[in-house]
């Protein structure tokens, strides 16, 4: 799109934003809340200034300068007094997480129902109370594996039926940003009164045999344009934009070692993680052979069997439940990016659509990047860490590799940005956005135990790529 088109687009969004804001203000009529938000934002602006000054020390190059205009536009929009409904009207009130294992001894459905029962009890509820079920059941393998509900996936309908619940609402999200998308279904179900207590679950399965290998002999339909050429599977999908990033910004695999060390360090502290007690050194990372340059096996989360469940309800009902609620301030999902060959994810597609996602996220949640003290970026493939840090405005475009290499995401440093403090996918296993959401919930509800951080007030949990995925802002207090 040309600059003029972009400007018109911004104008249109701005007009829409103003209209929505006016409607929202009339509906809420809550001047106090607005004042408080403005105060928070003023503090955020100061913090943002501090961070920007810090970044200047190691920023440079015309490329990052060019894109920082986009960032500024995004932040300018985030500064507007606009929040979407339902903001802070719905809360997470309980959770349970299974052990994360390469292959669980019990069927996935058994693991899912057991974990759901634990989450409902954790929230101080009984199965009979839960009347809404949301999930995503994408089975993220390129291999030739059967999809069977209850065995390789667990749908909301399957869950509701096998729990013996009296469901009023079941729904599944079919996009790529699966966890964030299904959470939004649950938030809206509660806010609209469609359901009072919603169970959100994600069940991931690691099939026996090679995860992605596919013995196909004939490339039919959409596959005919890529498979005969040898372009196939998620590793190649991510290798192309990652290599583009390396070439454009002069990044190295040495910088990415810092991401892996950080994810595995934090994952090693999490009892249910597949990598519990197993940190990774930079030397081990750099010694690994690349599989699809520049991706090595450590850059990919490991396929696992595991289930996570969360319970959502209204802020009003949450006040009567045992755990400290964590409020959903806002969310945004990816919109359809430019049409491409299957699994062709050029870097500019990821980033351009990611900036759009971030600006919608800030608009809807009423906060900006400087207010986020717990940014849990998605890391199912390690380059996503760079992409999310940059589209969220947590570091300048093209600088994430320097930022992480300088210890910028070291959660143990007082000045570090705890972007992978929950271990992420690289430090837990392929749980598809669960580690990010769970870390936000545990830290903001004060339930992180020995890992509890002093300052955790507003978190963001990301899932998948910035262009196909989604992100959710969580708050420890409603605002």
């Amino acid at each position, binding site marked *: 799109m040309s600059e003029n088109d972009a400007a018109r687009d911004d104008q249109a969004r701005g007009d829409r934003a103003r209209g929505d804001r006016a409607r929202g203000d009339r509906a809420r009529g809550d001047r106090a809340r607005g004042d408080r938000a403005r105060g928070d934002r003023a503090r955020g602006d100061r913090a943002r200034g501090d961070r920007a000054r810090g970044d200047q020390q190691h920023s440079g190059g015309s490329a990052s300068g060019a894109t920082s205009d986009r960032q500024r536009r995004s932040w300018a929009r985030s500064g507007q007094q606009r929040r979407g409904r339902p903001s802070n009207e719905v809360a997470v009130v309980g959770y349970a997480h299974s052990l994360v294992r390469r292959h669980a001894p019990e069927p996935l459905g058994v693991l899912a129902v057991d974990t759901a029962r634990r989450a409902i009890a954790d929230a101080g509820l009984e199965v009979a109370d839960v009347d809404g079920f949301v999930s995503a059941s994408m089975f993220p393998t390129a291999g030739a594996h059967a999809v069977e509900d209850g065995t390789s996936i667990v749908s909301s309908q399957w869950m509701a039926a096998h729990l013996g619940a009296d469901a009023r609402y079941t729904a599944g999200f079919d996009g790529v940003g699966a966890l964030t998308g299904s959470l939004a279904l649950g938030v809206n179900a509660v806010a609209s009164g469609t359901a009072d207590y919603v169970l959100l679950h994600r069940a991931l399965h690691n099939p026996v045999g090679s995860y992605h290998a596919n013995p196909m002999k004939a490339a039919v339909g959409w596959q005919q344009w890529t498979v005969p*050429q040898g372009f196939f599977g998620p590793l190649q999908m991510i290798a*192309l934009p990652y290599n583009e990033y390396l070439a454009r910004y002069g990044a190295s695999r040495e910088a990415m070692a810092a991401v892996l060390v950080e994810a595995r360090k934090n994952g090693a502290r999490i009892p249910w993680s597949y990598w519990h007690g197993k940190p990774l050194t930079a030397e081990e990372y750099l010694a690994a052979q690349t599989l699809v340059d520049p991706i090595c096996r450590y850059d990919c989360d490991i396929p696992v069997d595991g289930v996570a469940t969360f319970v959502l309800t209204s802020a009003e009902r949450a006040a009567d439940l045992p755990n400290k609620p964590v409020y959903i301030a806002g969310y945004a999902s990816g919109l359809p990016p430019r049409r491409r060959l299957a699994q062709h994810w*050029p870097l500019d597609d990821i980033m351009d659509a990611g900036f759009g996602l971030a600006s919608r996220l800030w608009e809807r949640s009423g906060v900006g990047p400087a207010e986020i003290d717990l940014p849990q970026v998605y890391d199912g493939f390690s380059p996503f860490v760079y992409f999310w840090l940059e589209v969220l405005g947590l570091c300048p475009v093209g600088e994430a590799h320097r930022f992480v290499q300088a210890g910028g995401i070291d959660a143990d440093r007082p000045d570090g940005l705890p972007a992978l403090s929950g271990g992420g996918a690289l430090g837990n296993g392929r749980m598809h956005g669960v580690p990010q959401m769970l870390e936000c919930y545990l830290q903001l509800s004060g339930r992180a135990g020995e890992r509890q951080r002093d300052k955790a007030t507003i978190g963001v949990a990301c899932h998948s790529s910035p262009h196909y995925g989604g992100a959710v802002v969580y708050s420890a207090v409603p605002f």
Partner: protein
Amino acid sequence: MTAPAPPTTPADTSTPANTSTAPTDASTASPAATPTRRPLPVPDEQSAPFWAAVARHELMIARCARCGAFTHPPDIICPHCGSTDPGFTFQPVGGRGTVRSWTVVRQSFLPGFDVPFVLVDVELAEQSELRLIGRLLDGPDAPLRVGTPVTVAFEDVAPEVAIPAFELAGEA
């Protein structure tokens, strides 16, 4: 991570394909193809002219009859003008382009590919962001950077079946 739902749409058999090009026959087909375990394309009503041209070592790309923009692969709706009746026809292109990204594949999840091999993400000269992905036939040590010029090449993989690929075009 995810194996995303394919962003492309399987060919719609109701969309008329260009049948004006001569059908492949034995006399023009690629010679001396060696047997392969590589997955082979299955042409459909829409894509048949593309694969017939590739078998003759010609690259043709679908072009919208309404707005004239190239689209690869063709769709049932033109992504440029939104026409639901795009009347795509396959038109010859020069086959020259520049490398936008690349990777050396050392582990293939498909049968029949000897590793390592290079994949290049190529923007064709005809239109901005008209991008194809294919093997680079110069081998894993070929010098590559963003912007390296390449030209289309063809791999004969079975009798009357070729696959488009690329090779270095030199700096000329």
